[in-house]
């Protein structure tokens, strides 16, 4: 039997069935009444991801609705922010965002969002950075590393979770200060940038703490310097940039943002959920002992204020290292 194709009524029926989904349904009551999409701007297994997955069950407990955690890494977090910026302000899409990355990237390249219009929910924690090389790398100290970079300009590479992230800019600052040139290589997140060092594809990585814990404890990574203000319990012996006489330190604030024009009622509820989560004893214990992250809760207003502060500080740094977009 030869089958002949024709646009039969069945095809039309199929298309019609699909169209039924397009009928809108409207009903509003108490927020939240359905699962909430949570975007993570970096890849799975990274510091932000580990932290968010740790607090999510407690936020769910407070909100009474499940959170759907979606990793949307790319362009140093700009993809996730752009995605939340274009979402409906109905409280069902939220993205986590790193500060200062949130304000540095729009100063470096054209983006599809305006960070000032976002609704700032809260910032639960800060995370800190360590510059690592592979365990069998020829450099044992920061000085060795800088000397090697000076000897062979533009050959050493370092991996970052995206251009414009704190991880990237801090090394740019250091390079500028020391008059050396190294090549940044962006990855979707810290797990990938650490693997690139472990595989010997790049020379160093400026990694946030939690993502590096397992590789460091297994003896695969060698710390050169701590970039935050104080020393970190994960690598107590390693000196900070300040200890070494540089007047510089960096850390990031992880926070959450809603699309522009999200009603205050939703923002407040979410802020309370985050606060509830970080106030839990087991969260605090786990975060400090296993992830080496410092909890530092800031409400929406404080988070926004921090944003303004960072815009100025990092704007100056960007200008200094020559990465600010020319207008």
């Amino acid at each position, binding site marked *: 039997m030869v*089958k*002949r*194709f024709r*646009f*039969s009524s*069945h*095809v039309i*029926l*199929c*298309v019609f*069935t*699909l169209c*039924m*989904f*397009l009928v809108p349904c409207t009903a509003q009551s108490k927020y939240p009444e*359905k699962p909430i*999409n949570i975007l993570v701007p970096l890849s*799975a*297994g990274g510091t932000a991801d*580990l932290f968010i*997955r740790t607090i999510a*069950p407690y936020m769910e407990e407070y909100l009474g609705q499940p959170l759907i*955690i979606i*990793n949307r890494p*790319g*362009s140093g977090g*700009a*993809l996730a922010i*752009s*995605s939340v910026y*274009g979402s409906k302000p109905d409280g*069902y899409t939220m993205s986590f965002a790193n500060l200062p990355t949130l304000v540095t*990237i729009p100063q470096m*390249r*054209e*983006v*599809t969002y305006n960070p000032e219009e976002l609704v700032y929910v809260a910032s639960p924690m800060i995370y800190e950075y360590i510059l690592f090389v592979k365990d069998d790398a020829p450099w044992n100290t920061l000085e060795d590393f800088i000397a090697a970079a000076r000897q062979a300009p*533009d050959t050493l*590479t370092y991996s970052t979770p*995206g*251009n414009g992230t704190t991880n990237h800019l801090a090394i740019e600052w250091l390079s500028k200060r020391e008059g050396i040139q190294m*090549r*940044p*290589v*962006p*990855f979707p997140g810290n*797990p990938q940038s*650490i*693997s690139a060092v*472990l*595989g*010997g*594809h790049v020379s160093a990585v400026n990694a946030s703490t939690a993502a590096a*814990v*397992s*590789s460091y404890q*297994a003896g*695969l990574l060698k710390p050169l310097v701590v970039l935050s203000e104080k020393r970190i319990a994960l690598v107590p012996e390693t000196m900070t940039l300040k200890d070494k006489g540089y007047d510089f330190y960096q850390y990031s604030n992880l926070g959450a943002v809603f699309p522009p024009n999200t009603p205050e009622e939703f923002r407040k509820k979410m802020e309370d959920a985050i606060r509830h989560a970080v106030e839990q004893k087991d969260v605090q214990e*786990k975060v400090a002992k*296993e992830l080496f992250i410092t909890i530092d809760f800031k409400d929406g207003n404080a988070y926004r204020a921090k944003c303004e502060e960072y815009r100025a500080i990092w704007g100056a740094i960007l200008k200094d290292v020559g990465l600010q977009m020319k207008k």
Partner: protein
Amino acid sequence: MLDIFLQLWEGFLMSFTLANILGIAAGYGVGIIAGSIPGIMGVTAMVLILPFTFTMPPLFAIAAMMGVYKGACFAGSITATLFNIPGTPEAAATAFDSYPMSQSGQQARALEIALWASVIGGTLSNFILVFSAAPLSAIALKLGPAETAALILFSLTAVISLLGNTRTDIWKGGLSVVIGLMIATVGLDPMESTRRYVFGLTELDNGIPFVLAVIAFLAFAEVLEQVGQMTIISLKKSGEKAKQIPYSWKGRWQDLKFCGKELCRASLLGSLFGAMPGIGAAPAAFVAYGEAKRAAKDNSLFGKGDPRGIAAPEAANNAVAASSLIPLVTLGIPGSVAAAVLFGAFMVQGMMPGPMLMRDSPETLYGLFALFIMTDFIGGFCVALPFLALVKRIFVTLNYSLLFPAVIVCCGIGVYAEEFHVFSIVLLGVLGGFGFLLHRNGFNIPALVLALILGPFLERQTRTAMLISGGDPMIFLTKPISAGLLFLAVAAIAWAFWKRMKKGSSG
């Protein structure tokens, strides 16, 4: 070596409890149902049941999650075999041979070959995970961006070269890959977040979600195609036109002997692909299919119902499931989306996956390995076999005029449930229609889907490699592995053309 056996034995003693067996069986059941519904991916099912595992004991929770993962992995082939609608993208390669075999009345044989291949592939890869996780992960780490990009390119050419019988087919296959890659570039670019091909639609900024594209091209387009071919007479019942040929024990044994070599090769290949973060099961299945076809002395039956064409991709895609946990176990880095969800399950249970788990609590780790090994057997024998019997019975009395609308509803729900955007459904319709037109004109839909899945990854790896080399494309040729893979890619295409030419000249 003996040491590992002892620890594994202790792991078994710890894990072999009724609760765990029930957990695996329940999880596997959920996975099979999710995997055989086009529109619901295994990962979606894992995410859905994750909250239920919070209060469970750790091993039980992970057993259930693992069951879902493996169940979905196998079940994609059920709908691929019966209706040519792969429930998951990795089953697309299985459909090449399992659908024709099933059309010739051998549904039982096709389904069972897929099941046994899944169990064998999964088991072999479990043992590879237990015994050689460390060396495999060292190899995977050595493969940097340049090598990964070359490997992806090789997978794509493998697909082009193995499909179609004429030179036009190869050209169309190449064109399908290019179309897939083009669709993959829609949206904000992954490095600089520049808008590309969005035509002013901000909804497209996120790109075309790959789950949506896969459903549109593999399920929706195929339904349109099959429905269009129906006449009123053929509409009645599927069982009437296709008689079922029973599958004897002797037949089973012969098939196993016939496919033995392919099963081993495909399992190894799948394990290797799985160890590399990010590539996933679909390319492994395609490459395994290509290898099976290339290695076969008589490959005239491939594409028409050769058992090796079912065994190879099924073994490979299931092998990926276990070995994609290698980066997770050895480095604490999830190698696939599913592994990332498992990562979450570990975290909830207060375990940090990674090298420290091996050092601090080897008994937990080996308990887990034992669970993985149990998953394939318990799932395969206690859940999948009865399920297949049920499916076969339903298939005989199935009314297609009810099935196809049901499939479309599933597709719509699956796509909508991803992110709750109505725009996704419009996109599903548009892409499905586009896929339907391509299919009618002889384009290669599986190649397109594979290119679409791998496109973003290929782009990122290529650009990263170029950044490492400072913009010098020679990095792809100076690294021996990537140069070798690129050579193989060119050779695959050349081989395909040469083969068709020879065939053409000899008549």
